[in-house]
């Protein structure tokens, strides 16, 4: 019933995308499309949430006579799918609401509207698919529709490059997943997930499939070193699409990983966790350090997505390690932490991208060095962005802290792991997690402080005004959800129990009956967190402070020029900029990781020429991995180019030779 309704909404989204094609350039098309997607995603959200909360343990199956004739299209709605559908459609609802206002400013609605609906349909389909063919089809559909959205403003500088890199990485990811499913399906071609689940592969095949899944899903999710397309593609798309790509599509990729590795691969080996933990740790720290070096607000947010995907991957890796060792309760704790962070990141990253969209709506700028002081003309946007920034910086009592706290708790039980390799790896990963959490706070002090505080750095920032009610409603709705999930983490953890029960065979103790909505993941003597009590405590002490200050203190307030140690400078250019805010951290961490070099050219005394500061940062992953790879592909293509100009005789002999070789191979194989 629920599954059929979900497929119905997906079909409606697809139909909407097609029907709007001829109308897309008309003015009323935009509110129509966004209004309809809002409604459809809302329906899907309600169905998914209901399934997760009330019938989490059961699953619904459906086979439609579509796709490959002897296979059909399999769909399945189980707890894991329901949770990710919740994330996808929550993102869809908020992005559509935001776009009701934001979409009016779109210069090329014909390039956005049809693909927007198709993109939402594709993400829903990936999560619902229950055979390899449907899954890969939906995956490609999602990739291509989002690619089209990235290319919406194809004439802007850099967009074509972004689209090319994205397309290349997306194809690579799909190729890896194709091979992974091929390995899982085995020689008899059992492409339905049910069949794969029933016949798990041997250890070698499973290990290979795991590596392919890490590469395939990791390239979509943005795991280092497969991340370079994120900071290019996410900023190039319109902001509601950036929010969906960063907040939701990376989660769909992680869904693919969880589905393959936790559900289809059978019992894990302990070493499976190693690549996941290592890449997760690298992503966390490199993502946030790169984010700190950015001047472009949306690029900063995209790099921060790399960091958060890394944090989620760390949780998943820990869960794999525990599951391989047979410590089910710890595996479920780590998986709960990872999935909780999936939800949280989709909430605050969407919120922050909406905030950057609102800034672009008001100023048409996303270079932070040309913004500043926006808290005065846009106080509401500033407040919502501040909540998102605090949540992503893991400040209590917001939601980012709750999931990070759970991840820390699962690291703290990992001395129980018997493998020596993991005993050295896990504390290092814990240190990296702590480091990236602290760096994330620095990063979002920068993002908020340079964009919204200080004095305006350009005329456009000076003349900004508050955005419309739809955009504000979307941002405030997400901010409220961030607070709610932080105050009542137990509700989310309980909702995740059927998911972890299905995937790890255990779940975190039920939180519902605990006093004061406390969160107790293992036992109360070990650790407990209560966002609600903490929030009340903070609120009470703030109230006491306010009352005391109100009673005792002088009420006089005088406005005067800034003090600045007696040397205020009228020019807003003397403020700290995005680059200068990052300078201490660049100097501390960047000299190694980015080989950061500063060259200062000082004119001689008396010379009126300006002094110059040149900064050089290197991206080692791009320089050492992608450039040689790109060069290699180019050279091979040059060599193969000769094959285009052969005579017919040579072509025939080539075909004959290949046939002989293949037959020989077959003969040897048998």
């Amino acid at each position: 019933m629920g599954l059929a309704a979900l497929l119905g909404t997906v079909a409606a989204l697809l139909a909407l995308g097609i029907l709007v094609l001829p109308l897309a350039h008309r003015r009323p098309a935009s509110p129509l499309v966004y209004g309809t997607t809002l409604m459809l995603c809302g329906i899907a959200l309600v169905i998914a949430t209901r399934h997760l909360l009330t019938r989490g343990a059961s699953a619904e199956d459906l086979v439609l006579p579509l796709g490959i004739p002897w296979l059909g299209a399999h769909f399945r709605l189980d707890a894991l799918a329901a949770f990710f559908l919740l994330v996808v459609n929550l993102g869809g609802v908020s992005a559509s609401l935001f776009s009701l206002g934001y979409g009016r400013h779109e210069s090329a609605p014909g390039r956005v509207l049809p693909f927007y609906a198709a993109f939402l349909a594709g993400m829903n389909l990936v999560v619902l698919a229950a055979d390899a063919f449907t899954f890969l089809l939906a995956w490609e559909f999602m990739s291509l529709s989002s690619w089209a959205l990235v290319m919406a403003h194809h004439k802007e500088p850099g967009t074509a490059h972004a689209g090319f890199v994205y397309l290349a990485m997306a194809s690579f990811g799909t190729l890896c997943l194709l091979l992974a499913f091929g390995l899982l399906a085995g020689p008899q071609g059992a492409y339905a997930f049910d069949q794969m689940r029933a016949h798990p592969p041997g250890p070698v095949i499973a290990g290979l499939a795991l590596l392919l899944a890490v590469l395939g899903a990791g390239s979509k999710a943005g795991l280092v070193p497969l991340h370079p397309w994120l900071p290019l593609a996410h900023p190039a798309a319109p902001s509601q699409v950036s929010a969906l790509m960063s907040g939701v599509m990376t989660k769909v990729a992680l869904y693919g990983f969880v589905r393959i590795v936790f559900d289809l691969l059978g019992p894990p080996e302990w070493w499976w966790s190693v690549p996941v933990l290592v890449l997760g740790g690298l992503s966390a720290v490199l993502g946030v350090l790169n984010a700190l070096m950015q001047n472009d607000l949306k690029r900063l947010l995209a790099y921060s997505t790399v960091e958060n995907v890394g944090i989620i991957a760390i949780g998943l890796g820990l869960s794999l390690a525990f599951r391989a060792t047979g410590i089910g309760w710890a595996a479920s704790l780590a998986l709960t932490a990872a999935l909780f962070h999936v939800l949280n990141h989709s909430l605050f990253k969407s919120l922050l991208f909406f905030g950057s969209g609102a800034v672009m709506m008001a100023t048409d700028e996303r270079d932070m060095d040309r913004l500043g002081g926006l808290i005065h003309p846009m106080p509401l946007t500033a407040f919502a962005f501040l909540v998102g920034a605090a949540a992503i910086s893991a400040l209590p009592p917001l939601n980012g802290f709750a999931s990070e706290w759970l991840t820390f708790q699962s690291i703290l039980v990992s001395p129980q792991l018997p493998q020596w390799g993991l005993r050295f790896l896990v504390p290092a990963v814990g240190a990296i997690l702590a480091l990236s959490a602290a760096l994330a706070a620095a990063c979002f002090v920068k993002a908020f402080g340079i964009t919204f505080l200080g004095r305006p750095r350009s005329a456009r920032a000076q003349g900004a005004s508050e955005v419309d009610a739809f955009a504000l409603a979307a941002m405030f709705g997400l901010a409220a959800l961030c607070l709610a999930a932080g105050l009542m983490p137990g509700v989310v953890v309980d909702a995740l129990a059927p998911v972890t029960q299905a995937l790890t065979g255990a779940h975190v103790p039920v939180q519902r009956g605990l006093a004061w909505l406390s969160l107790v993941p293992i036992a109360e003597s070990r650790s407990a967190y209560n966002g609600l009590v903490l929030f009340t405590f903070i609120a009470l002490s703030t109230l006491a402070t306010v009352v005391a200050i109100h009673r005792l203190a002088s009420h006089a307030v005088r406005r005067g020029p800034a003090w600045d140690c007696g040397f205020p400078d009228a020019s807003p250019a003397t403020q700290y900029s995005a680059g200068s805010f990052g300078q201490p951290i660049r100097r501390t961490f960047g000299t190694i990781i980015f080989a950061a070099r500063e060259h200062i050219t000082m004119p001689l005394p008396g010379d009126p020429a300006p002094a110059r500061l040149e900064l050089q940062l290197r991206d080692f992953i791009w320089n050492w991995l992608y450039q040689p790879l790109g060069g290699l592909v180019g050279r091979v293509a040059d060599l193969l180019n000769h094959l285009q100009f052969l005579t017919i005789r040579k072509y025939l002999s080539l075909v004959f030779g290949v046939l002989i070789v293949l037959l020989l191979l077959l003969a040897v194989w048998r």
Partner: protein
Amino acid sequence: MALTRDLIIQGAQVLLVLALAPLLTGWVRKVKARLLRRRGPPLLQPYRELLRLIRKEAVLAENASWLFRVAPYMIFSAIWVAAALVPTFSIQLIFGRAADLIVIVALLGSARFFLALAGLDVGTSFGGIGSSREMMLAALAEPAMLMIVFTLSLMAGSTQLSSIAEYMIGPTVGIRISLALSAVALIMVALAENARIPVDNPATHLELTMVHEAMVLEYSGRHLAMIEAASSLKLLLYVSLLAAIFTPWGMASTGQSLAAYLLGAAVYAAKLAAGGFALAVFETSIAKMRVFRVSQFLGAALMLGLLATLLLFVSRNL
């Protein structure tokens, strides 16, 4: 009945830390002055300063936003709550069950987040220099602190501060390498977090190396009073934390008589005095570092913390 008693103890703790914090600051200043053969201000001077600031009018920069006026309240209450969660005279605190050591670290992080934003709000170069440097220091100090938390939690099998303190009182603890490493690291972090001398100078203005003072340069009147009080509370918090973890003796536990609590308070006062004295001696005997040497100092703290954690992963007995 038990709930009322727990609430009274928690309330007493909330008020005690607030009342003692300026005294600790005054004590450190007094000892420092005596060590420099000055007479120094009276012990109660910080209270007088706070009262004076509260009574003065607040001068705000023309373009200061609402965040600038709200931030002192956020900073003060976050640090106050954090300080109220560290056991001082009584091991058991009722709100301690809602917030473990990781939460206390995160609360201090929240206060820093808002302080750094307030430094950027007016848009002056001094505010920016303070904020950016503070976040750089925090990027090393916070993970170092968390590694210390990991070490202690792995040893005690709990992240609750009260359980850690109980474990440290207990007979099983003994002398351990990881404990020594984390003690050194925690002292280093405490010095950096409180802007004390090898890292920052609390008594400086108009210096290009200042960090904390640069951020609060634009504050005056009641706002400055709250920030000053918050700084005192933070110093008290770190001294209490060191005392609760490494010298946990004398604290009263649940069900003991009133006399035990009074004794606990007296012992706590003695610990504070000793901690403040040690800080003053340390500060007068060492010079301030260049700002970019601080990252090496804190990097060492982070490595010590990581090493301590690693040792515990290798063997429970190290």
